């Protein structure tokens, strides 16, 4: 049996600092919002001329004075991702097309064009935030119904931890936040909850089974009993996610990366946050007696 409970304090301090750092990052550095939430235009280009690189392409596009324009390679050397804030000039894509044709001949194909107006992006951001909030509230209620409030608090703190630290990591690495990241965050919420529920279920069962073991020991027993399940499920989920990350194409990279972070944090938080909340709130056999009556 591994003594997870020995490190409760250390990991709580670690988590607290991770969350604080993440919050600071979110406040001062902010998130790198993609065009879904910020508005603007995104163009994915493929060139059949491998002499064209990011800087020649950027120089060419700068002739059009589109403002702050970002040009990056996307996946490989001949694919480019162009992003800029669009001040709703109508034929900007047509303009870019003809300017590129003029300078480079007919060597580009437009693989993807996305254009999101400011009104739509504001709505998408709002609905994303609402969706995540509703999900958190619903789960809180669900756990409250299924368990006692102490458990509910533990699960929710674990969830907040996962979401905030994942977003903090995205802020730190300047990774782009788009619609699929919202989906990833919500799935992380589901997954982390899933993990926590399984351990809590065991804690509750053990509270009934052993009348003389303190919660400090009891959580450790429960974590160990469910440990192999926790690991196997995390591993299979990660196997699937890594395969999306490496083979699923560029578009799914951000999504799968967020999920990978989320699964790792989710597994960690179910052990070291959800359970320590039970310990700190002094949950005992009495806590669940009410429910059994």
């Amino acid at each position, binding site marked *: 049996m591994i003594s997870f409970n020995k490190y409760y304090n250390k990991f709580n301090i670690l988590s607290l600092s991770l969350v604080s750092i993440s919050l600071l990052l979110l406040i001062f550095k902010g998130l790198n919002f993609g065009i879904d939430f910020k508005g603007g235009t995104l163009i994915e280009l493929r060139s059949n001329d491998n002499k064209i690189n990011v800087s020649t392409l950027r120089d060419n596009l700068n002739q059009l004075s589109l403002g702050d324009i970002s040009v990056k390679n996307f996946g490989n050397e001949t694919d480019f991702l162009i992003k800029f804030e669009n001040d709703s000039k109508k034929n900007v894509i047509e303009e870019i097309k003809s300017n590129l044709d003029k300078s480079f001949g007919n060597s580009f194909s437009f693989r*993807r064009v996305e254009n999101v107006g400011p009104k739509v992006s504001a709505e998408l951001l709002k609905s994303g935030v609402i969706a995540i909030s509703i999900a958190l509230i619903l789960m809180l209620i669900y756990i409250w119904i299924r368990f006692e409030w102490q458990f509910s608090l533990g699960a929710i703190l674990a969830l907040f931890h996962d979401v905030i630290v994942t977003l903090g990591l995205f802020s730190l690495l300047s990774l782009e936040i788009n619609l699929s990241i919202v*989906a990833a965050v919500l799935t992380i919420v589901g997954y982390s909850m899933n993990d926590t529920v399984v351990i809590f279920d065991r804690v509750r069962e053990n509270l009934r089974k052993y009348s003389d073991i303190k919660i400090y020991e009891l959580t450790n027993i429960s974590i160990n009993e*469910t440990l192999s399940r926790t690991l*196997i499920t995390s591993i*299979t989920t990660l*196997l699937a996610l890594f395969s999306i990350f490496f*083979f699923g*194409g560029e578009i799914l990279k951000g999504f799968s990366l967020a999920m990978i972070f989320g699964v790792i944090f989710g597994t960690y938080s179910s052990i070291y946050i959800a359970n320590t909340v039970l310990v700190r709130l002094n949950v005992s056999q009495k806590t669940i007696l009410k429910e059994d009556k």
Partner: protein
Amino acid sequence: MLYFSKLRIICITLISLFFIFISSSNLFNSNNFLFDKKINLGLDLQGGSYLLLEIDNTPVIEQKLQNQIISLRNYFKEQKIRLNNFKITDQSLSFSVKKEFKEVVLNEFQNEESSINPYYPRFKSHQFDIIEKENNFIINFSRQGLVELKTSSQDQALEIVRRRIDEIGTNEPNILKRGNDRILVELPGLDDPMRIKSLLGKTANLTFRFVTNNNEDSFGSEKLKYEDTNEEANVSKRIILSGENLLDAQPRMNSETNETVVSFTLDRVGAKRFGKATSTGIGKQLAIVLDGKIISAPVIRDTIASGSGQISGGFTFQSATDLALLLRSGALPAPLNIIEERTVGPDLGQDSINAGIIALIIGFVLVIFFIIFKYKIFGLITNIALIINLFLLVGILTIFEATLTLPGIAGIILTVGMAVDANVLIFERIKEELKNEKNNLIAFDSGYTKSRTAILDANITTLLAAIILFFMGSGPIKGFSLTLGVGIFTTLFSVYFIARLLTVIYISRNKERDIRV
């Protein structure tokens, strides 16, 4: 938990076979097959354009208020009340009236039976709100009035958008209402929406009006620019003909001038008016105005009684074709703005499908090997259930002809990863039970029973996330939540019926042996 009746076994087998059968219909291209249903590919996988259009109702509102001026003036004239200083600013209409009549005007507006409130009997609400400010009255569209106006302009706009897109002839366009002032257009297979965008960007409000030089035109006049130059001309506000009078419009080649023109045919009313105008106005210039710009202003040489004519204006064949198309399909009630556009080229779509399928296969194989390695014979059982689970998932998506998107594929892969969770929970539990219990059957039975609450709780929480995503999310997220949500149900079925059935068959054949999970 271990007993299966014969009937149940047959049902489970039939359901599994049914879904395998249905899933397989995605592989054939036959239409006379018993099940010709197929999963639709989203625009991100098959390529195509997604356009979200917003109707700018400001001109409609101002037009309606403008009309209101006349009817208000006439209505109160009958009561010997003069309304003054009509002004439209910022989508509201203001006017003033002598002090002594203020009360009367206000009462008329609030009277439910007064004929300036034609809305009341029908909608039990006023079309306009009236407020008194300083010495003026200000009229605004009421909430109900605004909703009414928006819905009706949305209906009209939808019809015109549909006609224009149908004229271009893209395959299976999807044109839907969104809210009360938006229209969503999905055009599968279209990789360059430039032309459609420019066609939808035009209101196509066509009018024929005389060019006047004196400013004493009783209808008033306005200065309008020419389409291709910066020249201006003074054009009367009196409309002789409008686009509504057109029966047909076609691009033509004028054999004399060798110029591309748009020829049009008028309806009976239009032909009569056109004939009259051309007979009285010989020598005058008739301006052809499209969306506030003059295309051309030819001098009338002769009376045109045939009800057909030509518009010339330095067109290329393409621009003449587009103008003819716009005129045939009619004018939009209000301008449309494209507020969101997402276009995916077909080759990127194919690349995404390939990448998605490769990721699915690799993820699947990795998970399968890991499970076999971990659980041996029970791993095999889990894997069989997992494969049937995939068929169930694909089968259900096929039955509902759901749309599969790239995030949807990610949802399927994630389902594969998480679907084993329930089996793992069960087998780990059985392992624990086997430590204290010699009887295999009892150990397995209690393993299943004791793990049930955890499995249900875990799946319900994920389901909650999927449901919220489905209802709150847009486009790609919907696809993801759909596969994730359906995946939860098929997973539970495959765990509790297929995997359990196979497990029961295995242990009942090896009752006495020492089973290790």
